[in-house]
């Protein structure tokens, strides 16, 4: 089974092409505009995949949408299935926690055991997370988070995500964690 995986939940995106349990191609990029060209080049090198996996976050809404929409277009062209996989599973270690800035005074936190999510990522206020720090062991921070220093900054990678097959879902919809932000009042 050949799999192409797109992970674009952070400012540092990545692509991986796996054949069975072997990674045979990896590419990293730093802006969304490079995703399509990188993907095109990878498929020219490796040929068509049998399935597509896309990281569904949590993370940058724009990055996640670009990845999911690109995967959708590719899947329609090649008549392939798209699997979603939580991006926070894209680390090499089997057990860890991940924290990322979710804006407006909140962070998202996810805990992984044996390469699987203990529960779906949750949103908590900055100060509440600081109070709960002792509950977590290895913590990766996805980018800098205001007021939270000292964690190794590390982003998820496609070459790890592609092997988290037990967590693949049929939904490519990003893990938004929040309702859509609406500035105007809803008309009754």
């Amino acid at each position, binding site marked *: 089974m050949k799999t192409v995986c797109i992970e674009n939940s952070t400012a540092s995106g990545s692509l991986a092409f796996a054949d069975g349990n072997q990674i045979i191609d990896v590419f990293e990029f730093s*802006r*969304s*505009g*490079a*995703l*399509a*060209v990188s*993907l*095109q080049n990878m*498929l020219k090198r490796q040929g068509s995949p049998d399935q597509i996996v896309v990281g569904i976050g949590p993370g940058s*809404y*724009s990055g996640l*949408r*670009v*990845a*999911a*929409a*690109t*995967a*959708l*277009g*590719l*899947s*329609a*062209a*090649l008549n392939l299935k*798209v699997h979603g996989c939580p991006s926070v599973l894209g680390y090499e270690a089997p057990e860890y926690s991940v924290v990322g800035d979710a804006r407006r005074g909140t962070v998202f936190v996810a805990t992984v055991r044996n390469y699987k999510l203990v529960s779906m990522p949750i949103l908590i206020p900055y100060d509440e997370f600081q109070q709960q720090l002792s509950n977590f062991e290895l913590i990766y921070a996805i980018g800098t988070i205001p007021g939270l220093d000292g964690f190794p900054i590390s982003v998820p990678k496609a070459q790890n995500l592609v092997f988290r097959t037990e967590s693949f879902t049929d939904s*490519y*919809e*990003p893990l*938004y964690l929040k309702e*859509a*932000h*609406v500035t*105007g009042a*809803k*008309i009754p």
Partner: protein
Amino acid sequence: MSEPTVLAIETSCDETAVAVLQGRSRLLCSEVASQIDVHRSYGGVVPEIASRNHLAKMGPILRSALTHIQLREVDCVSATRGPGLLTSLLVGYAAGKGLAIGLDRPFVGINHLEGHLLSPFFGEAACPVQSMGLIVSGGHTMLMHLVDLGKYILVGQTRDDAAGEAFDKVARLLGLPYPGGPIIERLAESGDPDRYKFPRGMLASGDFDFSFSGLKTAVRYLLPSLRGDFEADLCASFQAAVVEVLVRKTIKAAKTFKASIVTVSGGVSCNQSLRKNLVEAASKAGLAVKLADPKLTTDNAAMIAFAAFERYQRGMLGNLEDEADPNFKIH
């Protein structure tokens, strides 16, 4: 040998649309998934909600469109690059790129305004020719001199509200639901356009720019003094003020730039009063008129496919590295 086939995606605002066009006229499919009911309760388009819906609808609408054709028949994939809401644009633009990569076909990013500008020529045997185009919608009001494909001169544009935006704002003042433009037009049908004397913004400005915010303000100041059955007359008077400015400036621009054809496109070009008055004025001025087919006036992918076809024919292809651009310039 059949003419080239273009698949196009449009997601610049709140409509998720896919179309497949063969040649200049054979529209194999044109599907539009509207979100208008979702946004109506907010009184306008909420960008974040629009983007979420685009992504949710993209898979089904794309697969539905592809049932109308054999994939190998697609020669070119295109998508709207801008202008529009960035969070909406990037969904369709990325899906188009993914499709182009999978099919190993060229990709063309299209300017949404170019789609509107060329839409009055949709279905014609020859490529679009020199003309003066009025693009009038909820987001844009502009006069564009079409010199050649890709050579467009901005002649004038609104300095504040777009004409369609003015319709929607006046509708809101009247307590009418979103989108208000079509309701105002319907009410205006039975009204007296001369009952209220509304200002004709920038009619004597000497340039080709527009302004509609003063007109909207005039309606707001007049409203508290009105009693009884005034809605139809007010709508008719307001619409007449908008239409007169649009028509007179379009005709004047065509004469000034020596264009023998005037075109009108965009959502407000569906307005029957505008169409009728423009045809009459152009006829008096000895100008030909091309009106966009009403099906092509609101946001749709068929007009994007048409513009992409013209560009594909001339080898004006895009680049996978280009990104969606909410301020993408046409001129």
